[in-house]
């Protein structure tokens, strides 16, 4: 087999028992580490900062942010698109790679799925906070009300509610179903009665019978099939929030594929950002191997190139359309007041990404980590540039304006990182971060093929 020539997806010498022990010990026996506590404390402090910012927002109104006319969308929408994009890698890894029988996904799919959930949770907050009157957000949902009003179906924002809602639901179910055998393992290995009870309830009576396993595999595969189109549809719909508008810089048919590629790009950057420290601190180098990191890097390189292609196409189409507004927009992005942001995104997403052509860099976790951070900054900046520069100078020069995020904007953005990190820290301590059942499966397969 070809794979044997490559870096292995799991280090040799593991059997079912040692895999199970290594993964469950992180949760069940390992004492609370000081580093973990410190990390959670920082994350939680940021979360509290966001709570404060949100409280003030609800009290005063969205005017505490930098949004204005003409730039009526600001950080909230940028953050939303960024977070939802990050989520995509999780679904991509767990669903598409499962269907494609990529066995290397096994050790990273669990936390990638968790990452998806937490990212979608962060993303979901922003459109709600963004509303002028968030307390009536449910008017976006179709429900029979006394006013006889339904959502306005031509608006992409309504499609967005459905896209994100579906995505969140499917992601939760997919993640939870995948967790069932593992939670049952945790129940069985738990030392105290209380912990047993908790995991027992979560395990929904999983006994590991052959029938259970058969149904589990069918359901998991079906869910993977359901989740697969979501990888493409969710960010396509998100991109239509922009594409259906007549705003130069938004009104573009390239947006759906361009957004999906960008989403997977930033998602894999986030996977690396999380995987590299986790494997280091929890000594999981044997499970999350260099092979995993390199594969992620390769996907980043591919999707990054797609995104770069998107940038080039945008510029070309502006020139080819001969539309004075599009041409102005493109030049303004490059040389206008937001030029630093534009060139920062080009540097991060196009420039830094090219380093991944080199195997030496792809196999160096420290460098990869730094590159992943650059790409995340670049992708956030890309969304910022798309949202802000398109709006700040559109059709009538008299109405042109400028946008700057206020401290409340930044507090909410940084606070959302705190929310994400807090959830992730808790996840690491409370649930198996690597799928035990799939790892056992993998060890079994590897030992069989080695024989």
């Amino acid at each position, binding site marked *: 087999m070809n794979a044997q020539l490559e870096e292995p997806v799991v280090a040799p010498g593991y059997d079912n028992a040692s895999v199970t022990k290594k993964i469950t010990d992180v949760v069940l026996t390992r004492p609370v580490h000081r580093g973990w506590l410190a990390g959670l404390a920082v994350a939680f402090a940021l979360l509290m900062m966001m709570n404060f910012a949100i409280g003030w927002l609800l009290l005063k109104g969205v005017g505490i942010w930098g949004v204005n006319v003409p730039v009526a969308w600001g950080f909230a929408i940028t953050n939303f698109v960024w977070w939802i994009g990050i989520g995509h890698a999780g679904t991509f890894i767990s669903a598409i790679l499962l269907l494609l029988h990529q066995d290397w996904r096994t050790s990273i799919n669990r936390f990638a799925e968790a990452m998806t959930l937490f990212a979608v949770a962060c993303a979901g907050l922003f459109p709600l906070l963004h509303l002028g009157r968030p307390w009536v957000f449910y008017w976006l949902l179709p429900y029979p009300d006394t006013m006889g009003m339904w959502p306005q179906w031509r608006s992409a924002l309504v499609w967005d509610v459905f896209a994100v809602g579906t995505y969140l639901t499917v992601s939760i179910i997919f993640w939870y179903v995948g967790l069932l055998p593992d939670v049952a393992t945790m129940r069985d290995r738990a030392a105290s009665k209380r912990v047993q009870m908790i995991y027992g309830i979560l395990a929904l009576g999983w006994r590991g019978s052959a029938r259970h396993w058969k149904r589990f595999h069918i359901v998991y595969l079906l869910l993977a099939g359901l989740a697969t189109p979501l990888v493409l549809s969710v960010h396509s719909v998100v991109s239509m929030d922009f594409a259906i508008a007549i705003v130069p810089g938004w009104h573009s048919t390239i947006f759906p594929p361009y957004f999906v590629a960008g989403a997977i790009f930033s998602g894999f950057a986030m996977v690396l950002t999380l995987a590299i420290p986790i494997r280091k601190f929890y000594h999981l180098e044997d499970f999350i191997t260099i092979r995993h990191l390199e594969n992620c890097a390769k996907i980043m390189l591919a999707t990054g190139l797609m995104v770069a292609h998107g940038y080039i196409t945008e510029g070309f189409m502006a020139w080819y359309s001969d539309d004075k507004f599009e041409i*102005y927009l493109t030049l303004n992005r490059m040389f206008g007041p937001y030029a630093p942001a534009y060139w920062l995104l080009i540097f991060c997403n196009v420039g830094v990404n090219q380093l991944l052509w080199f195997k030496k860099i792809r196999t160096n976790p420290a460098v990869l980590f730094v590159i992943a951070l650059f790409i995340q900054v670049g992708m956030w900046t890309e969304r910022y540039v798309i949202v802000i520069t398109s709006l700040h100078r559109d059709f009538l020069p008299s109405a042109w304006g400028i946008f700057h995020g206020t401290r409340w904007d930044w507090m909410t953005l940084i606070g959302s990182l705190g929310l994400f990190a807090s959830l992730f820290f808790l996840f690491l301590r409370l649930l198996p971060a690597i799928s035990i059942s799939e790892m056992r499966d993998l060890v079994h397969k590897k030992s069989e093929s080695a024989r």
Partner: protein
Amino acid sequence: MSPVRSHWRSLEELARTDAFEEMLHREFPSGASELPNEWSRRQFLKLMGASLALAGATSCTRQPLERIVPYVRQPEELIPGQPLFFATALTLGGYARGVLVETHEGRPTKIEGNPQHPASLGASDVFMQAELLALYDPERSQAVIHRGQISTWDALLAELTTAAQKWKANGGAGFRLLTRHETSPTFLDQIQRILARYPGAKWHEYEPLAGTSPGARYHFDKAEVIVSLDADFLSSGPASLAYAKQFAAARRPNGAMNRLYVIEPTPSLTGAMADHRIVMRSAEVEQFAEQLASGRESKIAAAIGADLERTAGRCIVIAGDSQSPAVHAAVRTLNETLGNVGVTVDYTPAHTAPRDLRELVSDVNSGTVDTLLIVSGNPAYDAPADFEFAKLLQTIPRVIHCGLYHDETAELCQWHVPETHALESWSDARAFDGTATIVQPTIEPLFAGRSKHELLAALLEDASAGSYDIVRAYWQKEQAAPDFENTWRKALHDGVVSAATVASGSAPPSIAAQTPAVPSSRLQLIIRADERVYDGRFANNAWLQEFPDPLTKIVWDNAARVSPATAARLKLENGDIVNLKFRGRSVRAPIWILPGQADDCVTVNVGYGRTRAGSVGDGVGFNAYALRTSDALWGGAGLEIERTGDTHELVTTQQHWNMEGRDQVRVGTLAAVQSDATAITRTGEPPPAHDETLYQNVAYHGHAWGMAIDLNTCTGCGVCTIACQAENNIPIVGKAQVRAGREMHWIRVDRYYEGGLTNPQMLHQPVPCMHCENAPCELVCPVAATVHSSEGLNQMVYNRCIGTRYCSNNCPYKVRRFNFLEYDANQFEQPATRKLMRNPDVSVRSRGVMEKCTYCIQRINAVKIDANKANRPIRDGEITPACAQACPADAIVFGDINDANSRVAKLRASPLNYGLLAELNTRPRTTYLAKLRNPNPELEHA
């Protein structure tokens, strides 16, 4: 207390300690001694509340009957929900402009021009519109104040009675009356009676912005060629509304279109309308006037002179208020030579004006003044700086001030009397042409104000007389007719006194200029009235403070305007604070670079830098009066600029002045249009065909509302913005929010420059909602909060809006406004009196919802209901949105585009008609008529 005490209650009493005295005093208060010296607002309100309650108890006595007469209909009873309109007048610079005041259940809610009044002709300006906010300003003076303490009207009367005894004995010597320029016949009559009673007394008038121009009236509708020497006749002066209307009438290209030359040092709205705007330092204007009259050495003067000769008898030469008497004399000679006098220009004989301020100053300095009564002026703030009036005031033994605000002057006076607002009291006033109007109240005085008539009546020892009696008595005497009641009622109803037109109102005195010793300096100072706060009297009016200056679009500030070349020479940038030094006086001012300004000329606007205007106006801008001396009222040579290194942030509502090669404002020449009617509108990208849409085209049966805006007559004055603000309960957001890009005006006036920096053409474009038939905003709203009506209105449902703001993003015109914060309860709009001001027909929007121009749907519906009840079709012109109603140039026309005979349908059929950004397939209902120029071929090709 007698010094000999036979009995005592305590040792303290026996000892008569201070503490005991105080206790005694408190125990048995004899009057108001209980009141503390420091007044908190709370205490004041408590006392006011108690007084009001007590006042209720006294209301059993029957009050004398005062009748005011509604304008449009005279109902048996007031119909709740139906507005009544009252004709009255507001004055500016002393001259009346007739208005109709809309009142809802006794609350004035909107001011419109009175179509029957010669100075307004149905139009209005920002000052007239903003008087509504002034009426309800909670910071207006509310009590008689004596030496910083609240006092009573009776206390003042007592003091005046004592003084009157003395004046009777000495003939009133030492008594001086200082007023602003006054045209009120009743008031002038009262003054004459006072002067007759006390021959030693003197009356002085000081109107800060009174010009040097002799009484002249123009007929711009009859002029084919107009040459303005620094005269901003379209936007300033008591007749500007009438002149703007006349000018617009002669500006439309259907007949002969007039030609306007403007020679000016600093851009004005009139200059922006010019076919040829010639930038010239103000000192050179005089020379130019001479050249026009005689020599014509320069090519420009020769060309203009030839044009004038060609249209002799059908042209006007007009000089500005700030120009010297020599220029006015030269202009008059020109008009006489050209045979314009009696045709397009009428000169009225000069009137004897009252004494000016200089005389008062010298009298005060010589110590002959013991009592000064200041009626509705603020000389401590706006008198020429060399008079040092604020210091002088403190040397006069007794100064009584009567004004709307407890302002800089009131602060220095012994007595202050709150004056009633013009909408609260009876009075009268004359227009620029002498037409008299009875000023009738539209509401009971909100605060304990007294009218100027009541104050003067007190001096005539007739303190019991109310304003109504005084004014009516005057007119009864004036128009002694058997059916006076009918005449009176008709005068009130119409808003003009038909038989009372006299030759002319008197011109305000201007302080006689003395030849100054001018230090040599390259820079010239130009002092101008402000387009927003006038002479400073509107400084506490937040509508006007937030109204973008028509030329610079600056809000909440004034600035020293310099030309780009001068700024480059002096290395100045926008917002740099400089020391302006003028003849020994200096003031710190931020710089604003203004294209079209003459080089080496610095224009400053008075009216800012107030210190006691109120919470809105205090500390806004810099006080240009500090540079204004009696020998250089309008500026002059001898200015020096000194950089300070500090900067000040000037906030504008428009940051970008270049059209970027787009064709928002289409401009062409009359000649081009005459040879090919579609020459201008053809230049733009054509709108897509009607079938370029996935959705079915909507057919509009019945009404289809539309609006046409004539850029050719629009002067860019911006009254539409303030009229809209008043009509639609639009909140004020403050400087910080405007800086953040969140002004709320539903109709804005965009201003673009075309051409170079030295003398660009200024283009104005009012932009309300376009009510697109293919509205991009409607498509993207997720909750259907903005929808289309069957009559083609793009409607905003506030209650349904959740505030995604997508509609604003997708609006190519950016006319949507969002309530980012709870603007309506902000610091500038205290709820107490402002609630009364609201238009009850328009919802007040709260935080988090989008809003925008509705084409004044409340007015559309009111007319529809009326027409429906009367079972008749709606007449064209019956529905007028607030912007169209206020426009002095009739540049905004609204109507039914389905009715081929309506004015708007005809305008839309004009070859000059075009839709803004129509190439986006928005199919706007608001369209524009291209701007035309009528240049002189000789100068055009030069």
